[in-house]
């Protein structure tokens, strides 16, 4: 454990409530300069609130923070930056109308003649920043809206690095990154300069490779600070959830694969060429690919969100040509979309309303969907994904990302679809929630449903899938099954046998 130390950031007894909702009860952490400190905790443990307090977005009700021995209580993001504290947020905070350069320099851009903003100087300054952090592949004049999710995440991270002279907060920085080498390099360089880093991630392996110490947050309190070299995964897990965890990584028991449920023949879209496969009843087919290899197009074309150029899709023998997701649902295909924030949740509504959306007509009595009926149906669906009943009547936008994801999975499963298209179902989700989601997916398959699942995490595929398609350049590069379905083979296949193993695969 760290002793009280003048250099770095000390957080002492911080508490924060929103009205009657208590987000943080008592949190104390010391971030030492030059060290990467992990923050672990389930979704809803209070991590986001702590991040907001550190970044100056909200002020704590009680408690104090000391930065290098001086009181630190930022009122705005700019206050925090002025003290050398910056954050790369989980929900990326890059306004989509700006260019990369503007984003990096906001709110004060470079001025030219007459004190007016000079686009040229702004771009030049940004190019310099991008170069400093080895991100030359992103053009400083590109619009944020034109970037891929991974590129946006990188820009977000670079911006935080740029403003963080003393303390850097990285909230799920790898959620959209398939490759973490670049990030880890930057982190090492930053710590070498004496910057304290608070690192938040659900990926324990990642955390172990970076951080010597971790603080565990549970129900709004910092319950323990542990030396990661001396604690094993189970101990950490127990600290996080408050009880020991069931054994992990059991390859799912293979049920006999039934008759074909989803048959795809020669599916072609502008980003996908001639993809064919079949999923049987009770089967989970994994999809693995690097960013942007057409996996999104595959899922969206099946769900009626993207136009098909050619190919045929049969659901239990009947052709399915959905023009919109509603049609796909009617054919028995349910989609869990990629972007939770924009395509998934209805932030203003309760979780219950979110969950029952596709089955409103079914749960009604004589056409009336009374609140009690909605709640009852939602509770039943929530049970399947282990979503706590108390969250069902909450505004879904107020829930943590993991609970939102559970609710969305509950919605997709409740829709009655026999084929689920799950696009990265555990993105940005903590360990406990992951387990619940895995269990729900397995249970669904065990009941005879068929699942097409893309995941950015290889172990997930290895664990859940019966077979796995590897997409490369919009085509099925290979199909792995049985003993081939393990991480090393997959890593090779992902890159089309072209390069060294990926960092993440190697790290595991």
């Amino acid at each position, binding site marked *: 454990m760290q002793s009280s130390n003048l250099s770095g950031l000390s957080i002492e007894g911080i508490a924060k409530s929103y009205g009657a909702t*208590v987000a943080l009860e008592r949190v104390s952490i010391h971030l030492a300069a030059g060290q990467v400190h992990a923050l672990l905790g389930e979704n809803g443990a209070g991590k986001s609130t702590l991040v907001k307090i550190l970044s100056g977005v909200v002020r704590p009700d009680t408690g104090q923070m000391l930065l290098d021995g001086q009181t630190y209580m930022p009122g705005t993001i700019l206050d925090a930056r002025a003290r050398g504290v910056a954050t790369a947020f989980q929900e990326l905070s890059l306004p989509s109308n700006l260019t990369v350069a503007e984003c990096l320099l906001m709110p004060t851009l470079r001025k030219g003649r007459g004190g007016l903003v000079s686009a040229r100087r702004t771009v030049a300054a940004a190019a310099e920043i991008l170069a400093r952090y080895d991100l030359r592949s992103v053009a400083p004049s590109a619009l944020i809206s034109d970037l891929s999710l991974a590129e946006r995440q990188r820009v977000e991270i670079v911006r935080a690095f740029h403003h963080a002279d003393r303390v850097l907060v990285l909230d799920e920085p790898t959620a959209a990154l398939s490759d973490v080498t670049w990030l880890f390099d930057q982190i090492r360089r930053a710590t070498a300069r004496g910057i304290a880093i608070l690192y938040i991630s659900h990926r324990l392996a990642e955390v172990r490779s970076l951080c010597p110490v971790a603080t565990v947050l549970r129900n709004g309190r910092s319950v323990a600070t542990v030396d990661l070299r001396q604690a094993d995964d189970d101990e950490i897990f127990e600290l996080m959830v*408050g009880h020991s965890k069931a054994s992990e990584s059991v390859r799912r028991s293979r049920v006999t694969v039934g008759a074909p449920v989803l048959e795809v023949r020669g599916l072609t879209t502008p980003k996908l060429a001639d993809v064919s496969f079949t999923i049987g009843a009770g089967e989970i087919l994994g999809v693995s690919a690097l960013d942007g290899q057409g996996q999104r197009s595959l899922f969206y074309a099946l769900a009626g969100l993207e136009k098909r150029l050619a190919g045929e899709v049969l659901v239990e023998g009947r052709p399915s040509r959905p023009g919109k997701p509603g049609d796909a649902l009617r054919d028995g295909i*349910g989609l869990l979309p990629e972007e939770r924030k924009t395509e998934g949740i209805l932030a203003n509504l309760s979780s219950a309303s979110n969950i029952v959306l596709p089955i409103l007509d079914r749960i009604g009595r004589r056409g009336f969907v*009374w609140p009690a009926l909605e709640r009852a149906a939602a509770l039943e669906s929530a049970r399947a994904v282990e979503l706590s009943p108390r969250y069902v009547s909450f505004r879904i936008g107020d829930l943590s990302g993991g609970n939102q994801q559970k609710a969305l999975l509950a919605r997709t499963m409740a829709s009655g679809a026999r084929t689920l298209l799950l696009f990265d179902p555990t993105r940005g989700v903590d360990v406990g929630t992951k387990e619940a989601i895995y269990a729900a997916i397995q249970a669904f398959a065990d009941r005879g449903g068929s699942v097409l699942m893309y995941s950015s995490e290889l172990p997930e595929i290895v664990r859940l899938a019966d077979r796995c398609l590897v997409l490369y350049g919009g085509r099925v590069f290979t199909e792995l099954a049985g003993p081939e379905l393990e991480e090393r083979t997959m890593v090779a296949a992902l890159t089309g046998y072209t390069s060294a193993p990926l960092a993440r695969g190697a790290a595991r």
Partner: protein
Amino acid sequence: MTPATLDPALSASKDERRVTRVRPELVTVLSTFALSALLIVASRFVSPALGSWGQAATVVSLSSFLIVAAFGQGLVILVGGLDLSVASLITLSAVLCTTWVGPEAGAAGILLIPAILVVCALIGAVSGLGITVLGIPPFIMTMATGIIVAAGALGYTSGTPRGSAPAPLLALMKGEVAGIPLLLIFTAAFVIAAAVLQQATGFGRRLYAVGASARAAFVAGVPVTRTVVAAYMLSATASGVAGLMLVGYSDGATLRMGDSYLLPTIAAVVVGGSSILGGSGSFVATVGGAVLLTTLGTVIAALGIGQGWRTVIEGSIILIALLLLRENTFARIRSWFPR
């Protein structure tokens, strides 16, 4: 408070952080009605004859048109739109009612009343399709349909609407059943039916979903286009009903009949706490907003000061009401009463 070490009491994975359960919408509804009642009582100071049941009855009858029209406006706002054709549709249905049906209408003539509402609904469908299929902003599309419908009504009547109200509408607006004004019964029934439609049917729930996020609702399989078009059709129909009620009330139609209702419908919805951006709000709160605005009108009308200052006071009270109805205010009041 527990120190930052492992605490046995915490070993059970139980989240003890408290959470508020009072719904802000409920508070808005209660507040608007309470403010209205308060205004009525306080208006005794303005004139001794005010603050009576008679005044309350006036408020109910005057607010009924606004309530009906604001229902439609509220649905459209709920799906993230705005209906500027309310005024023209009120006028259109009034004009069609006096010309098609008229005072001496028999049973066959009465059947034309639903036909009028169908015309309104079709116009609403045009607005809705323009917005969903052609992607025209609701503001422009409904403004355009409004202008077109107004011009059509003008041309159709050559400027002079003929005829007067059919007997059933007169009865609706002025009749009584067992001493209770028929209008009150009708309005109450309308409010209940409309609130149930909005809050407790699949269609109503889908409206909320589309308003909260059209994209997410679409991905989740909601027929967004159909839902939005239906909202505009219902709005147009509600305006049509308000027009029919106005015909019964004033026993005739004029071409400017609806003009004074456009901004009040929006104001009623917003004062009732719905977000102008869609996805939130309840019809009962809108009713509260409509009643509050109408009460305000009757009280201010009795003030013995010039129209200029009267208008200033009206605007100020609307602002004060909005400030009082903010969620922050509720939170602050709640914090005074710790549990």
